C-alpha cells in the first residue's frame, strides 16, 4: 500500500468524529443532554487518538513497514485537536467560563486534575511537532520529550477510570489496550539489550 494514500485516508477518517458531531448537532441528534454528549464524544476520540498514535511504533517494528512513521505525527496532532475540543467544551459549554468553578474543579476533583495535567502535557508535544522544532531540539532531546506521551495516555485512562460512577467496562478496555501497547515496548527494549 502507498503510505501517502493511507495517510490521506486516515486524515479523512480522523475528521469523521467531528463531522458526525456537527451533523448530529444540526439535526437535533445529540440527545437530551447535548453538552454531555459532546464532552464524552470528544474525550473518547482523544483517548482513541492517543491509543492509535501509540500503535504506530509496534506496528512498524512488527511489520517492518518503516514508512508508517509518517502517519504518527498526524495521529498525535489529531489527538491534540480532539483534546482541545474536549477542553473547550468543558470550559465553554459545560462551565461557561466560570473560572472560579473551573479552578475549584481542577483542584478538587481528581478526575479533572489528571485530565487537566494530561492536556497541559500535550501542549509542548504539539508545539514541538514540526520538523523545524525537531531539528532545533535535536533528535535525542526531542525523543526524550515526546516520551511524555506514555504518561499522558496513562493519565487519560486514569481520568476515565475515576470519572465513571460504577461501570468500569469501558475504561478497563482502554487500560488493557494501553497495557499491551506499553508492555510491548518494555518487552521490545529488553529483547534489544
Amino acid at each position, binding site marked *: 500500500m502507498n503510505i501517502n494514500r493511507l495517510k490521506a485516508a486516515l486524515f479523512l477518517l480522523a475528521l469523521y468524529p467531528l463531522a458526525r458531531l456537527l451533523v448530529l448537532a444540526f439535526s437535533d441528534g445529540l*440527545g*437530551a*443532554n447535548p*453538552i*454531555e454528549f459532546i464532552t464524552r464524544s470528544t474525550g473518547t476520540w482523544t483517548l482513541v487518538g492517543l491509543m492509535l498514535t501509540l500503535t504506530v511504533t509496534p506496528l512498524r517494528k512488527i511489520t517492518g513497514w518503516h514508512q508508517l512513521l509518517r502517519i504518527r505525527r498526524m495521529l498525535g496532532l489529531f489527538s491534540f485537536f480532539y483534546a482541545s475540543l474536549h477542553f473547550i467544551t468543558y470550559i465553554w*459549554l459545560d462551565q*461557561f467560563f466560570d473560572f472560579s*468553578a473551573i479552578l*475549584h*474543579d481542577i483542584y*478538587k*476533583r*481528581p*478526575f479533572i486534575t489528571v485530565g487537566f495535567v494530561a492536556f497541559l502535557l500535550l501542549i509542548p508535544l504539539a508545539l514541538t511537532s514540526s520538523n523545524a522544532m525537531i531539528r532545533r531540539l535535536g533528535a535525542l532531546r526531542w525523543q526524550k520529550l515526546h516520551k511524555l506521551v506514555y504518561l499522558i495516555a496513562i493519565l487519560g485512562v486514569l481520568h476515565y477510570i*475515576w*470519572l465513571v*460512577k*460504577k*461501570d468500569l467496562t469501558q475504561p478497563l478496555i482502554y487500560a488493557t489496550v494501553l497495557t499491551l501497547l506499553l508492555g510491548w515496548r518494555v518487552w521490545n527494549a529488553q529483547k534489544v539489550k
Partner: protein
Amino acid sequence: MLIRRPHDIASSEITPEAIYRQRRLFMQAGATLAAAALMPNVSEANVRLSAAANARYSTTEPPTSYKDVTTYNNYYEFGTGKSDPAENAQQFKTRPWTVSIEGEVKHPKVWDIDALTKAFPLEDRIYRLRCVEGWSMVIPWVGFPLASLIKQAEPTGNAKYVEFITLHDPAQMAGQRRGVLDWPYTEGLRLDEAMNPLTLMAVGLYGQTLPNQNGAPIRLVVPWKYGFKSAKAIVRIRFTDKQPRTAWGRAAPSEYGFYSNVNPTVDHPRWSQARERRIGEFFKRDTQMFNGYGEQVAQLYRGMDLREDF
C-alpha cells in the same frame, strides 16, 4: 409544641385549577403525539390514567419533553448508558405484578398491581427531579401518596424505616447479569420521610401508565432527594426498626449517603452539586436546597448536621 403548617408551594407557583387542567390536556395530547411519532416502539401498555391535578404540590415550571424524560434514564438494570433503558426495557413484563407490604405492620398484604393502582385516588403532580450527576428535569407524574398506603398498612410502634426492594429478574433485566450493583436495587426512607405528603408512589407519567424505562409498573418519587433514591419497579415495601442499606450506599458509602437530600452545599466527592443543568436548557442554574422543597421537608431534618448525614 407549636406545629407550624408549611406554606406548601409559594402562592405565585400555584396555577388555577382550570388553567392547569387545560394545560395538562394540551400536554397530554402533545405527549401522545410525540410518543406515536418519535417512539414507535413505546410499549402497548401506554394507557391513559384518570387522575386529579394536585396543583398544591405541583410546580408550574415547564415540563421536560416527553421524549427526553423517556430516553434519558439512569436504570442500571437495563444498562448503564442513558439511552440503554429506552432500548432494552421494551419487552419488560409488568403483568402479573404484586407489591408485598411486610415487616413491622399490622396489616401485611400482597397487592396486585391493578388493585393497588385503583385503591387510592390518583393525582397528577409536576415535580422537579434532580439527579446526583448534576442534571435535572421537570416531570408530570401520576401517582398516589405513599402515606395513604402506609396508613392503610398501619405500621407498628417498632417501624422506624421503610425499605423498598425492587425486582430481581436477570432473565428480563440484562443489566443484572453483571455485578455493577449488588442486586436487587434497594432503597430506604425514614418513616416520617415516607409519610411526607410529597412522597409519591408513581404509576404514570404525562397522564399515562409509566413507560418501562421510567420504572413501570410502580416506582417511588421523592422529589427533594437525588434521583437514585426514587427506586423503580418495586416489588416489596418492608417496614423495619433498623436503617436499611441502600444499593448505592453499599456500592460507595462515602459517595451516597442514606439521606441523599439535594444539597448544593455538600459536594459529591467527584463533582460539585452547587449547580445543575436542566435538560433542554443551555445555561446551568443554581441548585436549590432540598431541590426547592424546603418548606415541606426542612423540618424533618431539624437538629441534624446534613454534612454528616448526607
